[in-house]
């Protein structure tokens, strides 16, 4: 029982971590919360539904399709909703935030229009396959979700830590002006970051579809708010914080359902924000660096 719940919590938490990484990357380089991230995530889930259910194509095609479409959405978001507001005189620093809220409303309504308001089942061909280890039941879907999430997290960490482009992203996140003085084309780096974050949102969309077998146009908002809670918990702009925060929230939600009251499940994230802001306002992994 305990181990099963632990597996459930880790599966959920690893998805949360992927969503939160999308938020934290964009926050890192642009200093804004991308309120459209949840809706891009939701589109990823719908594209997964379309490809697997309507077209009957295999899962990897769904992933490829979702990555491509959400990456394009990320590019459009940056190109038309964010970039025109940058470095303009008289533009409030809140403008890009409002702009992403506008995009999120647009995307949610667009998905109502395209896919209908109802609940779409997500059929993974292996949804029913499970393994019995002693008294523990583990579903193949859970293993797939967990493995994909972990691989994604390791790849991202490696990319940020070891590659030139990843280091350029970190430099840009830390100080845009300094990065440009060191030869980084910061406009390109920002665009690339929004694209990567959005594509990760798309992947997370499919993972959530697989985990809950349900996709709706409203799922973007609730996931978006949780992603936001996680990066506040983990530390705004911190990659490790997003990963740890996601896993913590996933485990906490799972255990509150089992040992407490399932009605409080969605409250956990926000309770965590209140507590963390009181005790450690910079987040678990947020650093206060003095220069």
């Amino acid at each position: 029982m305990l181990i099963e719940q632990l597996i459930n919590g880790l599966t959920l938490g690893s998805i949360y971590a992927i969503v939160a990484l999308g938020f934290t990357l964009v926050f890192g380089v642009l200093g804004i919360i991308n309120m459209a991230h949840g809706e891009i995530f939701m589109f990823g889930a719908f594209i997964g539904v379309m490809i697997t259910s309507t077209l009957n194509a295999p899962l990897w095609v769904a992933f490829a399709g979702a990555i491509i479409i959400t990456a394009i959405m990320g590019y459009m978001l940056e190109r038309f909703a964010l970039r025109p507001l940058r470095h303009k005189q008289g533009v409030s620093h809140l403008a890009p935030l409002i702009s992403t809220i506008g995009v999120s409303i647009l995307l949610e309504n667009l998905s109502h229009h395209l896919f209908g308001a109802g609940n779409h089942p997500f059929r993974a061909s292996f949804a029913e396959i499970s393994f019995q280890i002693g008294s523990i039941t583990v579903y193949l879907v859970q293993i797939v979700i967990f493995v994909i999430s972990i691989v994604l997290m390791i790849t991202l960490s490696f990319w940020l830590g070891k590659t030139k482009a990843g280091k350029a992203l970190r430099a840009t996140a830390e100080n845009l002006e300094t990065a440009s003085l060191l030869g980084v084309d910061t406009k390109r780096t920002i665009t690339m970051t929004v694209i990567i974050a959005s594509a990760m949102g798309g992947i997370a969309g499919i993972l959530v579809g697989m985990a809950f077998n349900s996709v709706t146009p409203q799922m973007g908002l609730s996931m978006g708010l949780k992603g936001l809670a996680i990066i506040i918990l983990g530390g705004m702009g911190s990659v490790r914080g997003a990963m740890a925060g996601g896993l913590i929230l996933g485990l906490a939600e799972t255990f509150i359902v089992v040992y407490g009251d399932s009605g409080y499940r969605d409250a956990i994230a926000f309770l965590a924000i209140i507590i963390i802001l009181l005790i450690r306002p910079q987040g678990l992994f947020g650093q206060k660096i003095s220069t």
Partner: protein
Amino acid sequence: MLKISGINASYGKIQVLKNVSLEVEEGSIVTILGANGAGKTTTMKSISGLLKPNSGKIEFLGEDVTGLRPDQLLRKGVALVPEGRQILAGMTVLENLEMGAYHRKDHDIASDLNKMMERFPILKEREKQLGGTLSGGQQQMLAIARAIMSKPKLLLLDEPSMGLAPLVVADIFKIIKEINESGTTVLLVEQNARQALKVSHSGYVLETGKIVAEGKSDELLNDSRIIEAYLGRKSS
């Protein structure tokens, strides 16, 4: 090598630079002196591409580079060590140095890194430490070393001695001289006027956004107005 003709620059409605012209000859060290708010940093920002001048022309190696972005200028050979050093505090010393060579595609980067570590043993010692944990003087050395990693033809240094202990300041000026002797042209902005003029070949004096004096460094060092305003009466 660098020729600035009549640039005007402003932050919003406040004009900071008024018709500033100056020239830096290849192989030299040139100092810009001036009080706080005279426009020294704005001049550096304009040359390095961080700020687009409203009018005027900046030429580098005979080419018009006015309005180019900092990353484009770096590729042409102009590197700025900004005021306050701007170390990447969340990246290690080694990563900071690697970022200096970001735009390079040659194969000498590793050997240049080694050379830099030999020249600045303290950076070698702390290569795995985060940049933000270094002391002010060490950060300044890292900032200069990082800029040299880009192999600049013209190095712009904005207040390299600011906030440093006198012994460290002497060290920094020694390093600036070495850099110049190894073939890099240097444009230096300093409040530490006496020491700056001693290492440099010529200088300009900025006052409220205008060039009010220029000349060879030893002339400026003996100019009574300059002594009065920037050097103090102490003779040395």
